């Protein structure tokens, strides 16, 4: 058993929120630079230049990369031998988000009463927290400030098993094409296949936490990723959908066994401002 203090968790959350919104991860930056080399559309090239310049400016002056500093999505991997002490875990995560968004001058975009009054909670809480219990005594925290423009383009379908790979491919392509410029291409496409309805979407979201372009460990899934990425880029949407070769920087698929009657498939899209920051306590 190892004690992890709530105060430390809170401070870490506050720091991660501020760093995630200003510092674009190195793998994303690298993928954008490669996209700039490959892009053939002159307008697309100009847009990628602005995106790269924006990332540099945000890093240098610690400014939010994008005004939409998102829903704060938090992934926790809690070691089964870790013991959280000194407070309530959910509360201290929310306090960390509150402090990070206040001190970082980040936009507060969360509204309560979503189908009626839509009242801003004024501190970007509550965050959306995903928890996984894993072996070990550590706590891994990942913060993904997720913009509305791309999150709103999420799609879920429960296909018939007979639709198979073609059904999955058609659904993913349709989701990306219909999203158009809304999710700020070049995007990263997260695809979840299998499980149940909620698990498929959760897998699609989790797929966005993988290093950009790192293939799935399973050879067949990695092959599907390659095929889907090629087809997504053949759509011709390009940066900000003005037309071009690079619609997606990467496409990640996560797979889980499913019921004999089911073929759930979920698409969760990340914008080019693919913000993600982690810490291990």
């Amino acid at each position, binding site marked *: 058993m190892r004690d992890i203090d709530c105060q430390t968790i809170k401070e870490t959350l506050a720091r991660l929120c501020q760093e995630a919104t200003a510092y674009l991860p190195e793998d994303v930056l690298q993928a954008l630079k490669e996209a700039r080399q490959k892009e053939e559309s002159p307008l697309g090239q100009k847009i990628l230049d602005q995106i790269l310049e*924006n990332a540099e400016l945000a890093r240098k002056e610690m400014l939010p990369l994008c005004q939409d500093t998102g829903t704060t999505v938090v992934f926790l991997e809690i070691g089964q031998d870790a013991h959280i002490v000194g407070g309530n875990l959910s509360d201290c995560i929310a306090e960390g988000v509150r402090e990070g968004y206040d001190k970082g001058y980040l936009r*507060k975009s969360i509204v309560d009463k979503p189908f009626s009054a839509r009242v801003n909670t004024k501190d970007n809480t509550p965050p959306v927290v995903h928890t996984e219990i894993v072996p070990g005594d550590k706590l891994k925290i990942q913060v993904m400030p997720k913009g509305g423009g791309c999150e709103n383009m999420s799609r879920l379908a429960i296909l018939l098993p007979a639709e198979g790979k073609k059904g999955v491919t058609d659904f993913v392509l349709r989701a990306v094409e219909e999203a158009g*410029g*809304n999710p*700020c291409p070049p995007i990263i496409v997260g695809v979840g296949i299998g499980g149940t309805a909620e698990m498929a979407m959760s897998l699609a979201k989790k797929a966005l936490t993988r290093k950009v372009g790192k293939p799935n460990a399973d050879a067949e899934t990695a092959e599907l990723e390659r095929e889907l990425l090629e087809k997504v880029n053949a759509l011709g949407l390009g940066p*900000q959908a*003005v037309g071009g*070769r690079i619609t997606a920087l990467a496409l990640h698929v996560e797979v889980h066994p499913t019921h004999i009657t089911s073929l759930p498939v979920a698409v969760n899209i990340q914008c080019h401002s693919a913000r993600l920051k982690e810490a291990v306590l």
Partner: protein
Amino acid sequence: MDIKLPLTDEIVEKLHAGDDVRFTGVIYTARDAAHRRMVEALDKGESLPFDIHGQVIYYVGPTPAKPGQVIGSAGPTTSMRLDRFTPSLLAAGLKGIIGKGGRGQEVRDALKQYKGVYFIAVGGAGALLARHIKKVDIVAYEDLGTEAVRRLEVEDFPAIVCNDIYGGDLLQEGKARYKLSVT
């Protein structure tokens, strides 16, 4: 092309889908909640919080300004959400819109009918775009916070013509040009 605001028929007649522009002058911010209020005001026969003739509306909800900053990060938001309000504002004299992503058929028709232009700025380049904003004043709906209507003075603000007054549509034309067939 450098454009001094406000827009006129003479200016918009020169613009075509795909043109690079730089704005200097005044633009106004408004998004969902502000649009709802403005269109409600028009429906009641009331006046808008600013004279909309020849003006440009920028769909943006900035981050709070840090000490010493004029405005926080300020890139465009998804335009599609405002489609239902846009024809009324174009009818009232609005001449230009800056956002991101495509517009519905009703907006594309209204742009042609009222000689308005839809521009896109680079979504996710909020820190960079904020550098072109030199002065900010809240002009209405302060209670809406980030969604209040602000008057921005901009210099060389970069945008691209997406939908022109002739029916040209950059997103449709661009996709058609770069689409590949993959078997």
